[in-house]
């Protein structure tokens, strides 16, 4: 079988290894973790021990020295847990909160924060969104004010994945009020510092197994060495981070919907109505054809974008298109899967109901559909 040029045989071997881990150690707990609204910390440690939290990171920090192909494989296989929150939490750890440390951090920051995150010993979260500012990053109110060699941070962060259990948070704060987009900076903030608190954990529509929290920073003093990257470049740094987040998010969601497609196909072969298996009805046959087409297009687009990035491009427009297309396609597919299951799909514990709830986030998280359209339109000169 001809592989997309993003992949080699070695990537396919990794795929099988992750799949076997997921299916034997994670998937069996999916239903329980969904009910509990949490999954245990050992998952991070286990993934770290196996090297799965550092696939793209250099060996000097404990990473595997891999590429985007490995990261995409990881995102795809994590979808097999059957509880979207687990894959999301792991992706935040490996592909969202930590990439800025490798790219913008000092050697000391990489040793203290990146390396233990790759080992699964420290859990990371990413703090961009606030109660009053989502994709409109320029409206961020959290402030960091210099005080001698230290910074004093005040504000709150909203919808933070891993927020309840994180050991540190990579967050963006305003360091210079009048400077607009140039007035933001990134910081690495230890969550055990005085003034740092989890104000509440949030109940969500889906992604039940992930802990999502609102964080409050009340006069949190961090050392000068907590500044990540260049002062005043926080906006740019975060925009860079969001590209990887969107790519990995799309890859995982498309894989999840593909799994749902396959399982729904099996269901349709077994389930009978009006004297025959329901897949014998032409209307459903065509529905499956539409789903398959949506998914293949989204998957190939994912690989094309990842390859562009792997080969040195910075394809912002294409990533935004991918996130937009994948979000819509995945939600069309998962809704059709729910529909084909009829009443059986509407029960809370049905896997398809879970997948349906989880999928909806892709059209919102890391920038809504509408924000993606804005980015694409701007890139087109509109």
């Amino acid at each position, binding site marked *: 079988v001809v592989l997309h040029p993003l992949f080699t045989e070695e990537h396919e071997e990794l795929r099988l290894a992750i799949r076997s881990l997921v299916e034997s150690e994670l998937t069996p707990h999916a239903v329980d973790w969904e009910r509990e609204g949490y999954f245990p910390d050992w998952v991070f440690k286990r993934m770290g021990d196996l090297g799965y939290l550092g696939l793209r990171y250099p060996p000097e920090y404990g990473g595997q020295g891999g590429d985007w192909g490995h990261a995409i494989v990881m995102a795809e296989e994590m979808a097999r847990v059957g509880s979207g929150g687990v894959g999301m939490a792991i992706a935040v750890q490996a592909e969202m909160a930590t990439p800025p440390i490798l790219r913008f951090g000092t050697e000391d920051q990489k040793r203290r924060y990146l390396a233990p995150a790759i080992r699964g010993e420290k859990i990371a979260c990413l703090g961009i969104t606030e109660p009053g500012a989502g994709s409109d990053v320029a409206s961020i109110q959290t402030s960091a004010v210099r005080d001698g060699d230290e910074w004093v941070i005040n504000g709150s962060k909203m919808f933070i994945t891993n927020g309840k259990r994180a050991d540190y948070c990579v967050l963006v704060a305003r360091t210079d009020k009048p400077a607009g987009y140039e007035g933001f900076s990134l910081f690495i903030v230890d969550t055990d510092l005085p003034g740092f608190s989890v104000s509440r954990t949030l109940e969500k529509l889906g992604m039940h197994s992930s802990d999502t929290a609102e964080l409050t920073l009340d006069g949190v003093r961090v050392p000068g060495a907590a500044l990540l990257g260049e002062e005043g470049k926080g906006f740019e740094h975060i925009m860079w981070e969001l590209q990887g987040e969107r790519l990995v998010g799309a890859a995982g969601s498309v894989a999840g919907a593909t799994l749902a497609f396959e399982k729904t*196909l099996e269901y349709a072969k077994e389930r009978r109505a009006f004297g025959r298996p329901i897949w*014998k009805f032409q209307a459903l046959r065509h529905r499956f*054809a539409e789903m398959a087409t949506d998914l293949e297009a989204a998957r190939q687009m994912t690989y094309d974008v990842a390859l562009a990035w792997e080969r040195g491009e910075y394809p912002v427009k294409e990533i935004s298109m991918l996130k937009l297309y994948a979000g819509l396609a995945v939600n069309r597919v998962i809704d059709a899967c729910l529909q084909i299951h009829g009443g059986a799909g509407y029960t809370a514990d049905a896997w398809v109901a879970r997948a349906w709830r989880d999928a909806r986030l892709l059209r919102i998280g890391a920038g809504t559909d509408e924000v993606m359209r*804005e980015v694409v339109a701007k890139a087109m000169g509109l």
Partner: protein
Amino acid sequence: VSATRFATLPKLGLFTEEHEALRAGVRQFVEGVLAPHAEEWERDGGFPVRDVFRQAGRVGLFGAKYEEAYGGTGPDLVADAIVTEEVARCGSAGVAAALGAHKDLGSYYVHRWGTEQQMGKWLTPSVSGEAIGAVAITEPDAGSDVASISTRAERRGGGWELRGTKTFITNGPIADYVVVAASTDPEAGAHGLSLFVVEAGAPGFEARRIETLGWRTSHTGELSFDGTPVELLGREGEGFAQIMTCFEWERVSMALAAVSAAERTLDQAIAYAREREAFGRPVARFQVWRHRFADLATDIAAARSLTYHSLRKIVAGENAGREVSMAKAMSAEVDWRVADEALQVHGGYGYMMEYPVQRAWRDARLGPIGGGTTEIMKELIGRSYGF
């Protein structure tokens, strides 16, 4: 404007530097020789057929898939795909269809199934643009339902004679040779089909041009055969398999052309929206249109990724039936949607014949019909999952 990096960078495991040079060359030909006449040819309901085919042959548009022995520059399917993509930007789908029906149907069938002697007779002059080819499968009562073909071929002396009617045949009235599907064993249904080649001017062969909604520059016709002498192409009784094999290339070519045409239509719509003002600002500045353009460009990019995926499978020699059907269905629907939105953004002008967007709209409508309807594509995709 709408072009994505997917089109050029990275190379996606398909395109090399030489391919990009070829693309530039074909684009120059299309922009210099074809595109400037789109309007005029549309009015005339045709184009200077012989002249255009010869010029296209001279610059190598027809030979990318074929070996040097037949005057070609291949075999290179990727190069051929590039020609298809670029020709689709000529602004007249009818001209693109005429060149395509020759390149990807007539000459392709001869190359695929012909003897050396038949290739010398029809393929070599096709590559140079001296001879024009076509393929005739559809009949008044049989489209994608190939098994219902009623045109009959019967042995007469040492050869074959053909009786029946074919319709919607692109290049039919202008072709020098037509590959025709006919039944040689009516009892056997689909397995009783065979392919034949008929030459223009053969006794009992008549062609009548049909007026079409779009593709108005293409010569589409109904062909009738009454005791017409024909030559067998390939083996008797294998017509169905031959047709199915060739459908793959036809459909991926249609997908490539649709993506390309959609991109051009969108670029033109955006250019218009930038100039046209309403309520004190360009239409392109309204958020609803900015977002709609973003959606359309996104759909085009997705269709392109899917189409390149199917092309990659074909180039690797894999069975790509499912992927090609997906690519054809999606790309044709995207092209049609883009054309309809392009018409919409033009407002009243979009409805007037003096603006080219109405042509793009009429032309794009064939995509979800020709080469197997979208519904047929969905049947094929569905069946590929074991239905």
